[in-house]
């Protein structure tokens, strides 16, 4: 009983010990904050990684892919039974994506994925990350009239018509300008003094246009050299994709079917948003997006065909939507097209059966099914030695990244725990001083018959209660910080003028946090343990004190 009484009295009268426990409080609070934010990031990342990846992927090594798809599908259904919830087939192929921006061709390296719009949504959260709300509900490769994300007001079929009209108008302007400038150049080369006359003659013809048109004309004039070069070099390919750069060609080839971008579209393609997006900050500090191409624009994709000797094939697609998972790796590298079209283009369809080969089969497991076990089962049926399949869970596919994040969390935790351990040494020193200060009291207690154990437990209890107070306060502080982390971040921003959490870098608008009760429990327990362990040595010293010497101590 005296232990409890003395413990509480020492706690109330020795504020120096409370000061030493502040370090534990801060350590605990920091650990809670860091862990919550880290697991917030991790969860967000898991969600995003898993969002695009199905649970298990059966991949083929070869370029030709899995040819006997139906029987493999049936076997997988038999092996997994009720654990299997969804199954879809995909074709993956590295490819080159090109599109034209203001006369310039831009090339991007992408991973072209052929997906089945009927079943792909059943294995992953892919459609959740599309920008058009209707596509989110029901995946489709059709171009919508409009109504995309608020960042994409100018997108869709309507935009496409306007763009084509504008392009055609500009093209006409350009042709006219071209004629005029070639005339001017001709005149210039002929006679120097006549050139002034020609220039003045040109002026009245330009006064017909409004100012905006003149600007356009000047722009075109500036980029003229480039356009001409390109037209000469890639004249063939320009004709292939039917960009109406040659109005006379259209007139000439009237009977032949000509692709009219104002009325028709190519097969749809869904691009990762970062492929065409440039994120920047306006002078007002707002985050703004600029799109190099948008739904309604056409792109050209080059990829190897299947077969004994892969050849490069080119095909046109119309962008129908963007995909924004906020994982930059995916958003900047993936483009999705309908699987059937890709199989056709790559010659993957068996002419006899009409069945297309696929490069992977994606599986989704039912809720609560054991991921590793299911994967193991499939591996047993399709050992890598006998079948050209690679069977992986999504965690294995993203293993290095997940491991890196895990490692980061672990190291941070170790470092922060070191801080608490350092705090433990502070407690140790303070406790030693308190024991020295209390030498006489220890002597008195011993003379009154207190046992070694009793004296020791006073100081152990003291350490424990300090640990409780320190980690308890730390826990409350940490949780308060985590709950209000975004307001604290904005407060810090307003004080320091520096952005704490930059959405242009992280893609999150807010700092994600997850409070894990178990983690917090372990942190608090660890801190208490350290406080108790730090009080063991002083407590032992107190217990071993000789009563007579302790009583004589001045």
């Amino acid at each position: 009983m005296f232990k409890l009484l003395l413990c509480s009295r020492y706690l109330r009268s020795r504020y120096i010990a409370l000061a030493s426990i502040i370090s534990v409080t801060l350590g605990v609070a920091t650990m809670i904050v860091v862990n919550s934010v880290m697991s917030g990031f991790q969860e967000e990342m898991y969600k995003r990684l898993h969002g695009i990846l199905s649970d298990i992927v059966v991949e083929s090594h070869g370029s030709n892919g899995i040819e006997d798809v139906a029987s493999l599908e049936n076997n997988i259904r038999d092996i997994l039974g009720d654990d299997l919830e969804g199954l879809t087939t995909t074709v993956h192929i590295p490819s080159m994506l090109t599109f034209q921006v203001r006369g310039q061709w831009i090339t991007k390296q992408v991973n072209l994925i052929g997906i089945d719009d009927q079943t792909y949504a059943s294995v992953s959260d892919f459609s959740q990350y599309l920008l058009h709300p209707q596509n989110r509900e029901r995946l489709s490769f059709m171009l919508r009239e409009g109504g995309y994300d608020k960042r994409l007001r100018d997108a869709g079929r309507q935009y496409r018509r306007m763009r084509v009209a504008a392009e055609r108008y500009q093209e006409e302007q350009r042709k006219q300008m071209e004629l005029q400038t070639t005339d001017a150049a001709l005149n210039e080369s002929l006679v120097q003094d006549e050139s002034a006359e020609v220039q003045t003659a040109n002026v009245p013809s330009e006064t017909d246009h409004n100012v905006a048109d003149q600007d356009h004309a000047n722009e075109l004039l500036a980029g003229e050299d480039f356009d001409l070069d390109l037209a000469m070099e890639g004249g063939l390919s320009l004709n292939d994709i039917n960009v109406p750069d040659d109005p006379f060609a259209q007139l000439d080839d009237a009977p032949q079917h000509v692709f009219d971008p104002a009325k028709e579209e190519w097969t749809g393609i869904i691009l990762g948003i970062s492929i065409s997006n440039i994120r920047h900050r306006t002078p007002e500090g707002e985050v703004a997006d600029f799109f190099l191409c948008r739904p309604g624009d056409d792109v050209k994709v080059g990829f190897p065909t299947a077969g004994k000797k892969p050849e490069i094939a080119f095909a046109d697609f119309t962008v129908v939507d963007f995909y924004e998972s906020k994982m930059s790796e995916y958003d900047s590298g993936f483009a999705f097209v309908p699987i059937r079209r890709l199989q056709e283009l790559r010659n993957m369809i068996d002419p006899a059966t009409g069945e297309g080969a696929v490069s992977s089969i994606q599986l989704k497991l039912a809720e609560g099914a054991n991921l590793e076990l299911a994967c193991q089962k499939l591996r047993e049926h399709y050992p890598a030695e006998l079948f050209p399949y690679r069977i992986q869970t999504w965690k294995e596919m993203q293993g290095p990244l997940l491991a890196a994040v895990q490692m980061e969390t672990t190291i941070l935790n170790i470092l922060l725990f070191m801080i608490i351990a350092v705090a433990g040494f502070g407690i140790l020193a303070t406790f030693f001083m308190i024991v020295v200060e209390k030498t006489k009291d220890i002597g008195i207690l011993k003379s009154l018959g207190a046992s070694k154990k009793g004296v020791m437990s006073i100081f152990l209890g003291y350490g424990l209660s300090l640990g409780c107070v320190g980690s308890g306060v730390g826990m409350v502080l940490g949780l308060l910080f985590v709950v209000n982390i975004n307001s604290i971040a904005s407060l810090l921003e307003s004080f320091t003028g520096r952005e704490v959490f930059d959405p242009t870098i992280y893609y999150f608008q807010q700092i994600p946090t997850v409070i894990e009760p178990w983690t917090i429990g372990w942190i608090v327990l660890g801190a208490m343990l350290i406080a108790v362990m730090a009080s063991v040595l002083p407590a032992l010293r107190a217990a071993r004190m000789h009563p007579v010497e302790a009583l004589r101590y001045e």
Partner: protein
Amino acid sequence: MNNAVSPKSQNAGLASGVHSLRGPHFDVPVNSASDGSQRTPASTSVAIRATGLKKAYRKGNVVVPVLKGVDFSCREGEFTAIVGQSGSGKSTLLHLLGTLDVPDAGEIFFRDCRIDNIHPAKRDALRNQQFGMIFQFYHLLPELSTLENVVLPQMIRNGVWGYWKQRRALRARAMELLETVGLSHRLRHRPKELSGGEMQRVAIARALMTNPRLLLADEPTGNLDHETGEQIMHLLTSLNKDHQLTIIMVTHDQLIAKRAHRTVQLVEGCVKTI
């Protein structure tokens, strides 16, 4: 723990004397005059006995012998004073008797039970339940109030639950004891708010809390002025007289020693009976 010492030769009638301290009739004649003469104790049975006690303090290679073979005994109900010059070993003897220290050689018996070599836990229990100790510098715990200081030995004796069950009775007893020593108005004060005499009276009340058989006093008046010292001595003699409490007191003051039944003089670590 109570049977750490089996009181074989216990005189039941005398032993119950201390228990009667509970009674409200107990009154301390603080101001009554004392004749100061040597009185004879009421009993012939031995309370504590030591034979051939030796104790030396070592500091590095230097050995300072303090006790060089002391024989000492004290009967039940006897008030014995140990006198001697500073450094004669009287405090050491008292500590040995009170099991606060262990002799290098010799034996100590408390009611015919050897106590110098028993297990530390038994020794702690013995100190707690059979012995009461008071010191020159009072040795109260500064964090605790007067009342808590007095109850402390019972807190040490009982666990949390045990104390909680009988806390009212124990607190009532502590208040009675404080009333006995004339400090019932000082229950909530901290030791540093009390005078020296008051502190010593609190220490006496604390020593009596567990109904000890033996009171060991180490210079109880050594730090007090003459008048206050007188009051403390009155308290001790009346405790001895009215309740047959065995008291062994160490003092360097011959006048104070005269109040005891018997004086044992220590000279350079040896007993010289007067």
